[in-house]
């Protein structure tokens, strides 16, 4: 084979196909059998009728769709900035609304209650809208990470209405309670899980001063309420009457309780820098720029800031039960963990909770480390002040950026084993977050000695 083949590199397909009937040495001149050809469709090789990702890999910018997509993206970013500049600060609109309520002739008590209801509606609206948005976004991002398209049909533009239809489907689904389940607990579990999530949003800043409630100990309040949800998760696992669910629920409890500690301790340096537990004060403490252009965000404080940011990010990922820490829902081991036996709206409440906590963690990351509502660059002098982008746009953009990081993690990393997960927490994350507090003390001492950061 080697001797014959070495001289002739070009495959000659058509020739020896004709040689075959001759070799068979048929006596009569039968009509020649059709020449054997490769499978073709419309004269093309089948491989050419299918999508092969070779071209887009070689030079993506050569594809018009790719260039159009970049233009769309730029347009969307500019559009959001324009809407922001047009609307202005949302907190100011809130003040106007409150003033309007005050002039409506209602007694002050009623005004206060109506105002609370308005704010509650807004927060719940944010959480629900976030559920719709985050599911769609997660599906799109996972699709693009995995070189797929994701939802493309519902609603027309890139499947934007997909989650709306999904929600309608979930609302219409039969609510199944397994025979082995504890009926009352099974009903209560999603409620116990979602309620603290809504309450934890009370002091969360959506802009410089845009929050449902200004609480002096906001940081403590958020962490305290966020950790109540685990009771709902354990209830769900226990009440389902399913071994896998129970295992998932207990794993979730162990994991969430463990990761509470480094999550809390990693924020201590931030609290030390800002000198307050109030989220608004923490946000405002990061206003201003070093050398006139470099933002004074806590994440840019040397070593301490980056470490605290990383620890908080990792602990937040673990808190929200997402990959690489999604042990409670480990699909290849536990089917779906604690929500295996839930369907319809009960199930979607758990999902609303998960995405609610992702959003909460994203906003907290933005407030604690990324300067809150502060712009990354000072407002240029040549642009008039009324064109400035309001703080709620910056805050939301930073939160969305962090949310993207969450999704990015999920579709990149494998999953840790249970014991590795606990080892990582107790033997690495927790000691180092303690050490980080010490480092923050050193930094503050140096600052007081006149090596100041400010």
């Amino acid at each position, binding site marked *: *084979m*080697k001797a*014959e*083949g*070495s001289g*002739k*590199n*070009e*495959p*000659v*397909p*058509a*020739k*020896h*196909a004709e*040689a*075959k009937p001759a*070799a068979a040495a048929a006596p009569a001149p039968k009509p020649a059998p059709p020449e*054997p*050809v*490769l*499978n*073709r469709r419309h004269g093309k*090789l*089948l*491989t*050419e009728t*299918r999508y*092969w*990702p*070779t071209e887009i*890999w070689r030079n993506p910018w050569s594809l018009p769709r790719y260039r159009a997509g970049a233009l769309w993206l730029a347009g969307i970013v500019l559009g959001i900035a324009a809407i922001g500049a047009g609307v202005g600060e949302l907190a100011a609109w809130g003040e106007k609304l409150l003033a309007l309520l005050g002039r409506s002739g209602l007694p002050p008590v009623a005004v206060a209650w109506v105002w609370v209801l308005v704010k509650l509606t807004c927060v719940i609206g944010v959480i629900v809208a976030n559920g719709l948005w985050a599911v769609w976004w997660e599906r799109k991002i*996972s699709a693009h*990470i*995995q*070189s*797929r398209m994701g939802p493309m049909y519902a609603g027309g533009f890139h499947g934007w209405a997909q989650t709306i239809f999904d929600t309608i489907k979930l609302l219409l689904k039969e609510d199944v309670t397994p025979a082995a389940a504890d009926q009352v607990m099974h009903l209560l579990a999603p409620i116990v899980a979602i309620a603290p999530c809504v309450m934890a949003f009370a002091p969360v800043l959506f802009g410089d001063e845009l929050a449902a409630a200004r609480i002096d100990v906001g940081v403590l309040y958020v962490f305290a309420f966020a950790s109540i949800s685990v009771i709902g998760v354990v209830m769900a696992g226990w009440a389902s009457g399913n071994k896998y669910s129970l295992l998932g629920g207990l794993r979730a409890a162990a994991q969430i309780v463990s990761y509470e500690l480094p999550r809390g301790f990693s924020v201590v340096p931030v609290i030390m820098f800002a000198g307050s537990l109030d989220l608004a004060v923490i946000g405002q403490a990061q206003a201003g720029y070093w050398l006139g252009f470099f933002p004074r965000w806590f994440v840019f404080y040397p070593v301490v800031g980056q470490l605290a940011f990383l620890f908080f990010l990792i602990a937040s990922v673990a808190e929200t039960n997402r*990959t*690489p820490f*999604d042990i409670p829902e*480990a*699909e*290849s*081991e536990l*089917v779906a963990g604690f929500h295996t036996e839930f369907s319809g709206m009960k199930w979607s409440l758990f999902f609303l909770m998960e995405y609610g906590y992702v959003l909460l963690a994203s906003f907290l990351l933005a407030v604690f480390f990324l300067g809150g509502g502060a712009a990354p660059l000072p407002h240029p002098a040549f642009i008039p002040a009324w064109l400035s982008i309001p703080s709620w746009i910056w805050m939301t953009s930073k939160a969305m950026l962090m949310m993207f990081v969450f999704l990015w993690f999920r*579709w*990149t*990393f*494998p*999953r*840790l*084993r*249970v*014991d*590795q997960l606990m080892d990582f927490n107790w033997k690495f994350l927790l000691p180092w977050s303690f050490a980080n507090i010490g480092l923050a003390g050193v930094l503050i001492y140096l600052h007081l000695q006149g090596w100041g950061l400010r």
Partner: protein
Amino acid sequence: MSTDEMIVTGPGLEMDTMFVNLGPQHPSTHGVLRLGLTLAGEVITKAFPDIGYLHRGTEKLMEARSYAQCVVLTDRWDYCSAMTNNLAFCLAAEKLMAVPVPPRAQALRVVMCELNRIASHLIFLGTYGIDIGAFTPFLYAFREREMILDLYEALCGARLTYNYIRLGGVAADVDADWTSKCREFLEFFKPRIDEYDTLLSFNPIFLARTKEVGLVSKEAAVDWGLSGPNLRGSGVSYDVRKSEPYCGYEAYDFNVPVGAHGSCWDRYFCRVQEMRQSVRLVEQALAKLPTGELMAKGVPKIPKPPAGEAYAHVEASRGDLGIYLVSDGGVAPYRLHVRAPCFINLAILQEILVGKKVADVIAVLGSFDIVLGEVDR
């Protein structure tokens, strides 16, 4: 202190074991395998693989089929790598009939088998990633596998059960379009392997899950009769393509990658490196594709090999696939036996799972890359 030592025994301190069924319906048993696990706490004290859920009796069926019809049935053993099954049977039958295979057919057999090895290892890579919790490599691997299947479909019309390698040669020829498409795929694929390495192979979490897990020593691997990447992962350099070359493998330049410790990761990485070697092999075979006949002369439509027996084995994607063929001179084989690598690789599970934690079962099971179609036949 290990968990085993912590099991306290004594009067009044009796510890109960728990029996857990893993499969046949479970997200990560790779087909219809049932694993019966006896647990003491988190530790496995006894494990047995229970097979037979996919038994279709192909060995018996073949005794009532002509030799040409048998090739069709071989596709159904290891359906992820049907070309090598075709080849193993055809080699055995050609040995019986003493038919020389033309060089072009030999080279095409090498191309197709190596492409199929890549496709098969891609399935392993993707599903193993899912077992460990990484979803994205699965879609990457299937994207590339899809291209190989497109090439196969253009070649022989089938995407899974090819029936392409026939007695005395191959069924269809390739043309310049096909070879250029194949080269395009190879050029695309080579950097993708590096991408898998950065995404999965050297991911710290993946390493932590697999590097120290499921160790199989050299001796144990040989004793249990492992073959293929599972054997080479334990450091034994045995490859049928090198030790008993067929289809002219002796003329190609390729290496046999071996692992160091026999861990899950070694078995995994052996396969990743084998994909690189397969790409080299396909490139070499395409570069010196000889011209000439596709089918050997003198193979009748219904062959009746002289009475006798023959054994032929090939390096299939999952190990040493052997066919023992006995003919009594009739139209159908008198007896056919398959040395199925997956079946033999599966047996070691009952030894190495003992003493492992439950969480490692999925990682160990996945790393042996079994296909139940071949285990049960």
